[in-house]
């Protein structure tokens, strides 16, 4: 029998990480993800794993860097201002090809902003975020069950690609309570051996881990190699579609915005408006195929975000004038209602 318990989003991430054999968690307090850090301070110690409340987010991500280079599964979590601080470390992890999971429970920005849920960090998450020509895999769940499941996959994906994986949620999802099936089947990936770790050169030649490539042409070569890896990640694109086949307009939204869009879609369908939904679950790599396929019969798209237009740029790039792309969004923690979205749909049609 399925083991279902009521759980908060942030806690489900922690429990999913523990199930995925996360050996070390490093965090620095910031709302709205403090309950996860507190939860891990208890659970990791109980399980004889590593928990540290670090002196800063910079230190936390560098502790992840250290734990990861030994082959241990490690994670950190924060919210937007703290994620900005982690970017240095994420760039180094990408350069050194180290796996690791980074949770961003987004809040309103810029600056200190506020503590409401928001989706203003889409660009930061999907464009690498730190310096240099790199990408991270970005996963955007929209329910507590999916958070629990995807954090487990995130560790596999990080190991599969030797790359940091960002889980992008927001303050609303983080605090949301929903039932979770703790035995839910989660996709398992074929993982390569960790034949690159540093754990002492007892049975082999010494190894080094570095992102510095000073020899003529070496850094270019390294970047091409990373680029090939980012292209391969397309194998693992995830996307949910609903009612696209008969749709006259398709909503495109991720995370909490997709939840609201699902309600708006049902409301609109009751009124006889044929609305469909595409929900990217991987934000990088982006589900290009699914969206392109829809343009064969859908000529109107409405992208809904809790920001002033970030993912919409990716949608426009793919659709490339094959259909009309509209945008509806609210910044700074404003959450659109289903009625607002239905009104916008009616306005467009």
């Amino acid at each position, binding site marked *: 029998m399925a083991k279902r318990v009521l759980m908060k989003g942030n806690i489900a991430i922690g429990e999913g990480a523990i199930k995925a054999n996360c*050996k*070390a968690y*490093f965090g620095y307090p910031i709302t709205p993800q403090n309950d996860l850090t507190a939860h891990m301070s208890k659970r990791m110690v109980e399980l004889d794993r*590593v928990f*540290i409340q*670090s*002196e*800063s987010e*910079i*230190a*936390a991500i*560098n*502790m*992840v*860097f*250290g*734990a*990861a*280079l*030994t082959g*241990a599964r*490690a994670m950190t979590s924060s919210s937007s201002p703290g994620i900005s601080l982690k970017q*240095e*470390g994420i760039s*180094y992890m990408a350069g*050194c090809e180290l796996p690791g999971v980074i949770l961003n429970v987004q809040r309103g920005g810029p600056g200190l902003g506020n503590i409401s849920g928001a989706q203003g960090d889409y660009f930061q998450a999907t464009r690498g975020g730190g310096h240099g020509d790199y990408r991270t895999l970005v996963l955007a769940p929209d329910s507590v069950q999916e958070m629990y499941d995807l954090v487990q996959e995130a560790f596999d994906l990080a190991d599969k690609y030797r790359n940091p994986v960002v889980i992008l949620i927001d303050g609303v999802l983080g605090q949301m309570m929903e039932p979770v099936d703790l035995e839910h089947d989660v996709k398992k990936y074929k993982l390569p051996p960790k034949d690159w770790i*540093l*754990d*002492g*050169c*007892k049975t082999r030649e*010494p*190894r*080094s*881990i*570095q*992102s*510095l490539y000073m020899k003529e042409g070496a850094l270019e070569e390294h970047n091409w190699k990373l680029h090939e890896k980012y292209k391969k990640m397309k194998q693992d694109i995830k996307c949910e579609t609903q009612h696209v086949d008969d749709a006259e307009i398709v909503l495109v939204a991720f995370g909490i915005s997709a939840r609201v869009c699902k309600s708006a879609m049902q409301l609109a369908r009751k009124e006889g408006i044929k609305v469909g939904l595409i929900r990217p679950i991987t934000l990088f790599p982006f589900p290009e195929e699914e969206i392109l396929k829809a343009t064969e019969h859908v000529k109107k798209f409405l992208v809904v975000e809790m920001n002033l237009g970030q993912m919409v740029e990716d949608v426009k790039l793919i659709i490339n004038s094959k259909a009309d792309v509209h945008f509806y969004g609210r910044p700074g923690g404003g959450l659109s209602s289903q009625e607002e979205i239905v009104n916008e749909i009616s306005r467009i049609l």
Partner: protein
Amino acid sequence: MKKILFKTEALKDTVMSYCPGCGHGVIHRLVAETIDELGIREKTIGIAPVGCAVFAYDYWNFDVTEAAHGRPPAVATGIKRVLPDRVVFTYQGDGDLIAIGTAETIHAANRGENITVIFVNNCVYGMTGGQMAPTTLIGQKTTTTPFGRDEKIAGYPIRVCELLSSLGGVTYLERVAVTDAKNIIKAKRAIKKAFQVQLDKKGFSLVEVLSSCPTDWGLNPQEAIEYIEKNMIPYFPLGVVKDKS
């Protein structure tokens, strides 16, 4: 005839890129001899800093990782906490350790991380071409203190061992200098002791090594040694600053 000088296994047989008279080469050698003598080469993980010693992974013959500028103590923390039976040390310059990495240094020390820090104090930013460091002496000319360091503008040189000594997690702090045979032998003893503290699981150990940078000081190697003796040692006194091992 008796052979008294051996190649160390913990150093690769290669040419180092350091300038003539630079202290890094000697200090690398002391670390390598220590690791060989303690028989820990196969379980040691070193952390190279951003600074002149960034290429340490080309010289040391054991596992070595890079870390972002100033972050080695946090990286060392991550490694040591998941592999407590390995030997983990950082090798850091003054800019790395007590300018950009101040928070990571103080908090790793305060947590009593069971790691060893080899802190190379040359009073200057070597790699970037000789700017002021947190340890640059009052009056010392650098490319960013062209009139000499003025405390009214740039504050005072930081005495790292004294600064760290009040922290509960710190077990062993000693300041040494690689100026002459006598001091180099002392430096070696201090480095070995610091690693031993870690092997005995006694907590955070740091050895501050006063080291020369003839290139950025604008001196020849001999004058640079004299500079350490005449100017650095009076401000940064040698000896054990803390030992609760």
